[in-house]
């Protein structure tokens, strides 16, 4: 066993160190305080759109830095995952978003595994450059956790499919260029065997995107398809085999989701707050209940860190970490909720303040986390399904009989 965690740069080879320097030089020029300020505003305030975040992501994409580990012919740099890690480290240390997203972490890997060579050459470089931005078109009003019940129809018609129906919770669809869409291509087959996956240009005639505002203040969308024609060359993988690719895509999504909130940073901020805040001349940090609560959150954050390391370690050995990723997701996202709640309890009356007041503690980040984290225990795979997955695949329990 070896739990060594390298500090930033410590494990770099000579070539990686040079690359890191190149990244630093680039960020010195491109990530000016002015740009960073705008990016932070888009992140901290509840947005309609994120033009500066997207523009910066495209700048990274133009350098091949969203996916340096992809082959060159597909828009990468043909370099190692270590290079992507270096980029993420350098961006994170400056408080910048790491770039990429659904395209690079979910859709790209599925295309890599199941698309034709022609499709790979068409779509992957655009994703790599950040030009093709994707939104997920999975859930429908009558198909959420039971995703295979989706009803959106795609009917073959010459060189196209004609698609009709409605998607919901397509976050980012109002900004994205394309939809990563699951639709039913066969109504006769069992529900898991009649689904296909498509890349749909959201500017196509017949597509309507309407906003839904979440409790977290962020926008998600309903997307309506009304006789939308999608060329057959935009179907990824075999017709009616989409469910098997979707399961992989959901696995990639889970891995991305488990680390979505930098919860340890918020715990550290709460610790700092407790040290600095006095009640009746006594620091909050001396309150035994506060001490117990913060210690517990620090312990649970450590477990989250270790679960994340296990997932990465399995991937580095070429093992698909399905159970480990499910554990990391369930644990990490439920911890996000616990940190939100415990943080609110520590902040007391102040906890309810939104960011625009001079009285607001910690820029309102805890209040926002408390509202935001609610959806994480069902988004990207409900935790009920995740727990059944853990029990059946890790301990061999029988599945629930299908009805």
């Amino acid at each position, binding site marked *: 066993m070896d739990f060594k965690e390298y500090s930033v740069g410590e494990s770099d080879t000579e070539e990686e160190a040079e690359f890191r320097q190149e990244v630093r030089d680039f960020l010195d020029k491109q990530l000016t305080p002015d740009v960073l300020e705008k990016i932070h505003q888009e992140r901290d305030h509840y947005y309609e759109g994120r033009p500066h975040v997207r523009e910066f992501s495209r700048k990274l994409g133009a350098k091949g830095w969203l996916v340096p580990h992809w082959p060159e012919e597909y828009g990468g740099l043909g370099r190692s995952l270590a290079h992507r890690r270096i980029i993420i480290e350098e961006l994170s240390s400056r408080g910048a978003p790491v770039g990429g997203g659904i395209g690079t972490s979910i859709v790209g890997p599925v295309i890599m595994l199941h698309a034709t060579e022609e499709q790979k050459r068409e779509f992957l470089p655009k994703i790599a450059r950040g030009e093709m931005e994707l939104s997920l078109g999975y859930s429908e009003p009558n198909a959420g956790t039971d995703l295979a019940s989706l009803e959106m129809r795609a009917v073959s018609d010459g060189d196209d499919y004609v698609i009709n129906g409605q998607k919901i919770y397509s976050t980012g669809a109002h900004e994205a260029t394309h939809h990563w869409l699951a639709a039913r291509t066969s109504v006769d087959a069992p529900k898991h065997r009649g689904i296909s996956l498509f890349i749909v240009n959201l500017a196509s005639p017949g597509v309507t995107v309407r906003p839904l505002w979440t409790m977290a203040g962020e926008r998600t969308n309903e997307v309506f398809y009304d006789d939308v024609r999608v060329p057959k060359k935009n179907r990824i993988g075999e017709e009616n085999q989409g469910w098997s690719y979707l399961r992989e895509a959901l696995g990639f999504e889970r891995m991305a989701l488990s680390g979505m909130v930098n919860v340890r940073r918020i715990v550290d901020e709460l610790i700092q707050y407790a040290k600095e805040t006095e009640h009746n001349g006594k620091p909050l940090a001396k309150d035994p209940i506060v001490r117990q609560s913060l*210690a517990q959150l620090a312990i649970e954050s450590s477990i989250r860190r270790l679960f994340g390391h296990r997932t990465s370690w399995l991937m580095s050995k070429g093992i698909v970490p399905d159970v480990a990723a499910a554990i990391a997701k369930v644990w990490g996202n439920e911890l996000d909720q616990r940190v939100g709640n415990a943080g609110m309890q520590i902040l007391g009356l102040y906890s309810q303040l939104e960011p625009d007041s001079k009285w607001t503690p910690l820029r309102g980040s805890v209040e926002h986390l408390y509202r935001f984290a609610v959806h994480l225990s069902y988004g990207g795979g409900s935790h009920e399904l995740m727990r059944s997955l853990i029990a059946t695949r890790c301990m061999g329990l029988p599945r629930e009989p299908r009805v």
Partner: protein
Amino acid sequence: MDFDLNEEQEMLKTMARDFLSKECPKSLVREMVKDERGYPPELWRKMAELGWLGLIFPKKYGGLGGSFLDLAVLLEEMGRACLPGPFFSTVILSGLFILNAGTEQQKRELLTKVADGEVILTLALTEPSARYDAASVEVEAIGDDNDYIISGTKLFIPDAHIADYMICIARTNKGTVLEDGITAFLVDSRSPGINCTVLKTIAGDKLCEIIFNRVRVPRKNIVGELAQAWAPLENTLQQAALVKCAEMVGGAQQVLEMSADYAKERMVFGRPLGSFPVIHHYIANMVMDVDGCRFLTYEAAWKLSESLPCTMEIAMAKAWTSDAYRRVTALGQQIFGGVGFIEDHDMPLYFRRAKAAEVTLGDGNLHRELVARQLGL
């Protein structure tokens, strides 16, 4: 990062599991709860032959020179098997204290005997205040020529009734700094003035009350240095807490496996109990608890093996494992239902031990407080 055991550790694990399943069946565990001594000397001798009693001691003291990671692997299997007897009191509490505090000569003499299985030791630290801090050491040792005279009551002392010697932690002077003035004495258990009573406990551990009534101990029996015992003792308690975690991980893993196996076989409403989602969720929670305990424990054991600072990591491991092992056994009880409530079943062995291990060497609240201090709160 590497979450795999190395080849030698895998061998140790397999060997320990095979050996204990043969030599330490549950029938023996139950017999030992009722047995007056609480351990089978034959098994103790075999463990000495395997080198287990000296696994963690350096070779020059008769040990195998193993690491805390190796020790964790072994303890996990002992926890799984509910191994009865004085391993923890002799090898861990006393052996590690001697290693941390003893003079070169004491280490050579005593640790070699421990490793060979020739001597049973215990650490007499806790008192009726039932705390592990320096302020709670009130038993006094007063100098008298070449001797010290010890008086007072020690409580919850494991295996004292069978120990050849006990390491008695006593106060030799009462200064303002409570950590100063604490001394460790190697006391022959047959000394006049010692009265030992075995207490009945939830897990059948043989914890004792020891009354020291003017017990005379020669000055040369001081372990390490006069009045300097607290620092090595604190170090020992940390190491012991971590080793206890490894033992608990093994018990929790066994409960998880037993519960999953039962859920697969038990039929209810015409299908396996384990096909109901609510049981999936119980099992998944147990998996996450067991993995969480194991990773915290092994990360701390790795740091200890690498001589890296790990005070916070050990406190985190004991805080979490204390609660998680209890939760795992409670869910196991729920899955087994009535059959797990019957004393002859294996579940009560683990349910009882989880609670005993939780309160031993500091529970969740105490260790969270230690974490809070490490966080600078």
